[in-house]
């Protein structure tokens, strides 16, 4: 990356900084300890360096396609570095972790592993409403499947066992309240999903057990929020022009 940030044609003169331990020299070019965290990585960097030196000898950096790729990579690194600088202090507090844990019992304190029978139905919105009424009457999913077959509706059936965290978030609050044998219908992008709870096994996660992941997750979410806010702010103050109909074509 440092190589990319270096001016074109300058080789890796800036690859090592004062005080850094030099692990290898490749035709005079230094490879620092910061670049190679392991012996295996060092060998790979040496091989890459050899190829880079040949590429520079051949002045490949002046090839328009290569120059464009280098510029794109450099800009990506710079954009990422700016976000990292802005979000360097993003941390989650103990109170936030605790609140998150308490606010989502279906995933933690009351976590369950669900065994479900599922019918994924492709249907227009009007049929979904009829299906909802039919699901409320049906004793089990087989009865509902027979009804769907009689209407020539397209559907697929499956039985699955999933822990709470791997079920769609939109379904979870309802599933968490269901008892074995109960049937529920959830609207899906192209129809509906009808689910019958076959069995639910209690598998709670303690706060201490969940806290490390919650901390990472909340910190990650903060970084995303910072990034999204920064992009929004920059767009508001920037002058962005779309010459011709480029914008329309980009859509």
């Amino acid at each position, binding site marked *: 990356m440092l190589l990319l940030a270096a001016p074109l044609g300058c080789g890796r003169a800036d690859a090592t900084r004062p005080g850094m331990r030099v692990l290898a020299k490749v035709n005079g070019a230094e490879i620092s300890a*910061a*670049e*190679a*965290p*392991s012996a*295996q*990585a060092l060998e*790979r*960097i040496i*091989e*890459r360096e050899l*190829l880079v030196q040949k590429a520079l000898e051949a002045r490949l950096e002046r090839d328009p396609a290569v120059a464009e790729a280098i510029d794109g990579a450099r800009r990506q690194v710079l954009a*990422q*570095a700016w976000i*990292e600088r802005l*979000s*360097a202090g993003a941390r989650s507090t103990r109170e936030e972790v605790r609140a*998150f*844990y308490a*606010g*989502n019992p*279906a*995933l*933690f304190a009351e*976590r369950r592993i669900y065994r479900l029978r599922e019918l994924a139905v492709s249907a227009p919105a009007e049929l979904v409403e009829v299906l909802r009424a039919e699901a409320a009457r049906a004793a089990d999913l087989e009865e509902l499947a027979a009804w769907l077959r009689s209407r020539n509706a397209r559907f697929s059936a499956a039985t699955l066992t999933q*822990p*709470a*965290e*791997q*079920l*769609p*978030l*939109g379904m*979870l*609050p309802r599933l968490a309240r269901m008892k074995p044998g109960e049937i529920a219908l959830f609207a*899906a*992008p192209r129809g509906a999903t009808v689910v019958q709870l076959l069995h639910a096994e209690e598998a709670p*996660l303690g706060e201490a*057990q*969940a806290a*490390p*992941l*919650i901390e*990472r*997750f909340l*910190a*990650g*979410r903060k*970084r*995303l*929020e910072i*990034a*999204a806010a920064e*992009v*929004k702010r920059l767009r508001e103050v920037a002058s962005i022009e779309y010459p011709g109909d480029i914008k329309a074509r980009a859509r």
Partner: protein
Amino acid sequence: MTPLKLLLACAVLASGAAAADPAPDLLVAERSPLPPHPSLYSFADVVRLTLGAAAPAGPAAPPAPLRVTSVQPAAAEPRFSIEPVREPGRWRLLVSGLALAGWVARRRLVNAL
């Protein structure tokens, strides 16, 4: 990740009353493909998207292995082709026959003289 996706990940969390998860199960989820629609994302999916998109730059990672792809076809193999030997056309046979007959007649005439 585009700003839209960043916002989407946040929005899913805000609306879904989601929460964290057990690490072992998440590791399994990390290998599974994302659902086709965001409304079907599980908490494990959201965590994966969030941590994947927002992971801070760590210590220098080893370089990705260099890709070696063949842009040229493999060395051209010798190709053999069998084509019929073209025979002279009928008019060529006729002309050559007439020329031969003329040459023989001329030779006899010269010898006779």
